[in-house]
């Protein structure tokens, strides 16, 4: 077959007939059938999401302890820093630079107000709660912190972290506040309140309820039960027995080894390393040494074995 006018000649022959459209149609049918078969046999996982209501009902001690940590500033959200809040000394660094800080606080979250106080202000017909909120917000920040810290310490010492068994002490209105929040959560009212904050009808941003849920231990325990925790190579896993994300093997691998496993800047360091490796993959054709690796490795002889055998059989052909 000779090239037609205008055709890019990248190969002078020999050729073979090849029906790429038929190949495509067959491939599509094969993959579609495989997909249907796999879907029919294995289905897909759908573990119900954790609601604040379910959390408050299943583990009220953890819920209350988390609510207190939002007030005393010891929760993960309270001490997070950018992009949620301004907290000195936070933010991972790559050398001297904190990219996190450079980006700034663009998703403002005030855990004490957003997760605890604001939702409670909307609760009607509760004079005791209204008085507790008024007392709390009327006090100075150091008094608020002292009440919350005292109560948090006492909770941790109470049997099963049960608020009803906390020893007496100087906690101010904090017990009333967090127990009211627990009741609001158990009724189901807190889930909607956190996402809409009384201002939105349509809401699709779950930043606040998710940050609050993630501050608790109950959520992490559920994940650990499903082998999703970081120490369990969880990034590669899926709930139940379903295949996970095997292609994340290299990303999660770095977290398991030093220096990343003991570094406080592990996330940004691993991302930086992965970006370098990613650039290496993309620009492989231009990297001396790496770009000549395939020919040295010789796997191509297996791929093109029919071609090389034919050249060996032919008279005077080079075999590469």
């Amino acid at each position: 077959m000779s090239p037609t006018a205008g055709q890019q000649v990248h190969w002078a022959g020999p050729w073979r007939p090849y029906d790429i459209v038929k190949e495509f149609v067959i491939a599509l049918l094969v993959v579609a059938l495989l997909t249907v078969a796999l879907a029919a046999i294995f289905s897909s996982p759908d573990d119900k999401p954790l609601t604040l209501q379910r959390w408050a009902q299943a583990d009220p001690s953890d819920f209350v302890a988390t609510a207190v940590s939002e007030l005393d500033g010891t929760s993960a959200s309270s001490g997070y820093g950018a992009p949620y809040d301004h907290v000195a000394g936070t933010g991972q660094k790559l050398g001297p630079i904190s990219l996190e800080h450079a980006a700034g606080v663009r998703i403002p979250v005030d855990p004490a107000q957003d997760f605890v106080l604001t939702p409670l202000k909307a609760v009607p017909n509760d004079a005791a709660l209204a008085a507790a909120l008024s007392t709390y917000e009327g006090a100075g920040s150091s008094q608020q912190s002292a009440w919350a810290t005292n109560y948090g310490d006492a909770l941790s010492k109470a049997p099963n972290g049960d608020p009803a068994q906390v020893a007496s002490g100087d906690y101010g209105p904090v017990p009333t506040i967090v127990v009211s929040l627990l009741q609001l959560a158990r009724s189901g009212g807190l889930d909607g309140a956190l996402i809409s904050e009384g201002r939105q009808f349509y809401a699709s941003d779950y930043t606040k309820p998710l940050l609050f849920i993630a501050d608790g231990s109950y959520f992490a325990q559920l994940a650990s039960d499903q082998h999703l925790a970081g120490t369990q190579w969880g990034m590669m896993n899926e709930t139940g027995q379903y295949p996970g994300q095997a292609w994340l093997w290299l990303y999660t691998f770095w977290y398991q080894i030093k220096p990343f496993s003991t570094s406080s800047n592990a996330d940004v360091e691993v991302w930086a390393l992965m970006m370098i490796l990613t650039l290496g993959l993309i620009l492989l054709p231009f990297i001396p040494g790496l770009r000549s690796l395939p020919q040295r490795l010789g796997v191509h002889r297996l791929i093109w074995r029919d071609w090389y055998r034919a050249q060996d059989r032919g008279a005077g052909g080079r075999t590469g």
Partner: protein
Amino acid sequence: MSLAPSEPSWTGALRERVAGALPPEQLLPDRQPAYVRSWIYVFGVLTLAGLICAIASGAVLALEGAAWWHTSSVGHFVNSLHLWSVELFFFFMVIHLWGKFFMAAWRGKRALTWITGAVAFLGSIGTAFTGYLVQSNFDSQWISTQAKDGINATGAGAWFNVLNAGQMLLWHVVLLPLVISALVAVHIVLVRRRGVVPPFGAEEIPPERRVAP
């Protein structure tokens, strides 16, 4: 039928340029070089088939809305089709990528083919990631709350908020599929334009002495 424009025009110039770069017999050739004779070659088209199945099943999910699959057994099955087509897509793509590596398929002015493929691979990982985030179940909650730390550490989390399900849904359904589809289209056009990479040493053999397998 002449393709030459009747008088100078942008349309005519573009048509001439496109037709010259990729004439129909090269866009849809019915022949390939004789060395295109290995099972590795089917993994590219299998990857494409996986992508089409993923987009098609995703489109059905979009028809009924993001929460449909939680309350409908048909919806759950379509979600399963979407999951498994993506699993197959990645499986075939990884083999395709390794095959192209061992073939050093970037040779002969094919660097851009490699680059578009590599970027499409990475973009697909991002698309799959946002897909996990919009399942609206426990998995979405866990993955988003864990992933946020890594992404926030890079500074990107200030704009790309994995906890914002609405944002992630639009990225997953609109933005990323458009980008991936465009990359895949360019990738395939480049393969047709440059042809399949020859074996090492094949082009050094004089054409009249090459033997078809």
